[in-house]
């Protein structure tokens, strides 16, 4: 079979994010001194963790045609709840509590979106404000520093600063687990097919016997689940749970990673590994700018260009 021009464009579209990432790596290896140092790579892993975790949930949400802008606030809630209660009930019960509370809120969003058919953007905007408020109330408006929490605080801090074999940051574990789990879910499992079918044509899906409301509840609940762990790992890394600032703008990083990774905003397709690449590209831009002494505002402008470019290149070809 000969390859037509359209096929070539399709292939380019499919791998555009990967190509972009490779270009960044090559450029950096040529122009940025010390780029391949171990410390540098470790930095990437620790910093990218919340974006990837939230991005995994977000990939599924966006593939149903929805959006979840409450993940940053959910991060704060889970982080603060865990920090606040762990000295009283122990570290693992506290984590379970924080995660369960987050998942419950996610399911509430799923109920509004799936059963009542309300706009995901509006519902999660409400959640974003409300949950941020709750997080701040829970910590009484003061940041909870782990070094004031004694033994429990030290244990939780290990979730952020421990290095496997003294080398690889602990964040690699949740990253790998989350990506593998969501990839298997999206590609191999019935639920994953149903999520993407709902995003592609909700009416056909309903008429094929898919419980569309149930799918929505799962997807938003799962997004909150991922965000909760992102919040706990993030607060552990900085050894402080701050209701006001933890996870701020994390939702935007996650959405950007998903979009750059090639998951269409209109839903119907989940590109799990694309999201990972998207997150890496974003991180790469920050890193490149920092290491070359380019001020951060420039990095932001550059990220904006990349996002627009990604959406442009992945748009449906004109008929």
């Amino acid at each position, binding site marked *: 079979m000969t390859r037509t021009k359209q096929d070539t464009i399709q292939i380019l579209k499919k791998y555009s994010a990967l190509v972009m990432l490779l270009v960044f790596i090559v450029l950096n290896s040529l122009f940025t001194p010390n780029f391949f140092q171990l410390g540098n790579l470790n930095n990437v892993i620790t910093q990218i963790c919340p974006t990837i975790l939230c991005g995994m949930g977000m990939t599924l949400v966006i593939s149903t045609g929805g959006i979840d802008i409450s993940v940053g606030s959910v991060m704060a809630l889970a982080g603060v709840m865990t920090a606040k209660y762990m000295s009283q009930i122990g570290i693992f019960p506290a984590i379970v509590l924080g995660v369960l509370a987050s998942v419950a809120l996610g399911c509430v969003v799923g109920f509004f979106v799936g059963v009542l058919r309300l706009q995901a953007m509006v519902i999660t905007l409400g959640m974003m404000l409300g949950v941020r408020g709750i997080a701040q109330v829970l910590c009484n408006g003061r940041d909870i520093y782990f070094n004031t929490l004694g033994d429990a605080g030290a244990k939780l801090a290990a979730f952020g600063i421990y290095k496997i074999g003294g080398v690889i940051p602990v964040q690699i574990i949740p990253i790998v687990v989350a990506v593998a789990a969501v990839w298997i879910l999206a590609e*191999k*499992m*019935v*639920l994953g*097919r*149903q999520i*993407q*079918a709902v995003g*592609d*044509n909700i*009416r*056909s*899906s*309903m*008429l*094929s*016997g*898919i*419980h569309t409301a149930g799918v929505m509840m799962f997807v938003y609940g799962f997004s909150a689940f991922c965000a909760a762990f992102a919040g706990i790992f993030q607060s552990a890394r900085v050894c402080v749970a701050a209701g006001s600032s933890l996870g701020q703008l994390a939702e935007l990083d996650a959405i950007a990673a998903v979009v750059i990774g090639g998951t269409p905003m209109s839903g*119907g*397709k989940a590109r799990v590994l694309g999201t990972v690449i998207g997150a890496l590209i974003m991180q790469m831009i920050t890193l490149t700018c920092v290491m070359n002494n380019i001020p951060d505002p420039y990095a932001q402008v550059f990220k904006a260009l990349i996002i627009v470019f990604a959406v442009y290149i992945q748009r449906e070809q004109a008929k």
Partner: protein
Amino acid sequence: MAEVLLEIKGLEKTFPGVRALKGVQLTVNKGEVHALMGENGAGKSTLIKVLTGIYQKNGGTIRFDGKEIDCKTPIEANEVGISTIYQELNLVLFQTVYENLFLGREPRTGFGAVDRKAMIEQTDKILKDFGIHIDVTKPLKAYSTAIQQMVAIARAVSINAKLVIMDEPTSSLDKKEVQVLFGIIRKLKSRGIAVIFISHKLDEIYEICDRMTVFKDGEYVGEYDIKDIDQFRLISLMVGKDTVALERKKTGYDFADASPLVEVKNIKQGMRLHGINAVIKQGEVVGLAGLLGSGRTELAQVLFGVNMPDEGEVFWMGSSAGIHSPSDAIKKGMGFCTEDRKVEGIVPNLSVKENMTIALLPKLQKFGFVKKKEQDEIVDKYIERLKIKTPSPEQAIRNLSGGNQQKVLLARWMCMNPKLMILDEPTRGIDVGAKAEIEVLIQELSKSGISVLMISSEIAELERNCDRIIVMRDGKVIGEVIDQDIHQDKIMELIAQGSESEGMV
């Protein structure tokens, strides 16, 4: 001889791959109510859209009020004096009645501000002329659909429309409101304004219209005075005589003693279904005949749990079915090939494989994982059995032709081993070859003991395939024909008689 207002000749409109209007004509006189008749796909809407500048014509001439026109936008059409009242009203519901009436052409005061006082006064006067007495300062959404429609008409007339097009204006009105609307149409007539009226309710056509033009499959069939054509004749013009002469092959009715599979009793729903009783027996192919809007699709949707009936009950193999959603219906053993493939059938970006097995997946899993091997086997089997033309099972379904998409959707339900298949217009928009294949398939289903409920606007198609045909009109069952009695003329006669029997009840 009445004065001609609109004269369309040899109008052509093609879409990629489809010739939607094949040189049609239409003549509308001043001050007459003219009906456009024809089933779905006849070209009525396309004609209206060309006339009002939504589509551009590919050929032919349109003369309006003595001048040749070629409107590029709806605004242009408005300016020459053609106004359309759409099914979905293009009004601003949150604004007041008077604001809506003057939308886009608000009178100004000397200071350039909007002159509300003048607007209110004029609106009041315009509506009173029509016999509508409402508070014009209230938001439009405070009033019923009927009133909103009146306002839309009043708006059209107040911008000096000479021709008002009403596309299914009565579909959401009750009987009393329809009469109010007809009163207004008569007022328009008396002012010399012409009305193009589209409705699927024949009784309404006969009540309000003076003349009609009939279309079929994008072609002009003829122009008639209402008083010269009876309902039977009209129905046969709209749905009769398939161009492909295929004879009914079936003989003998074997289902007199078969046990009923599904039974509906006194199903009522909104304004669409008014007490339906029907039975489908095991292995039987039952046709639902009737014009558009007769409630055929609505009945199928109730059976499949898409909509809940307001009253009445569905029985499945003798006991109450208790179906509340499509997934309940699927569990019972139903499959539903919907009328609108694009919106209610395919999941466009998923592959042929996934589209085919989407309903089966919950049964095709182990610990939540898709059983790939079995999935592939099933998909290969049906691609071969139904002769689905696709480069590979992984191809996105939207890249297939209509006929092949339909086959995939049929396979979606066949692989579930259903007991009842509901097929709503299974051959619409697909080529003759695929059509014949699907008809053969329907017979195979029936032979293997699967009941089929077939809905079709082509009576000839029902004649060829069904063991029994239930005839519907205006949400009621008005007759039933079995075996030897199944004949196009007989069915059309029943549909035509529907209105008289309604008068007797």
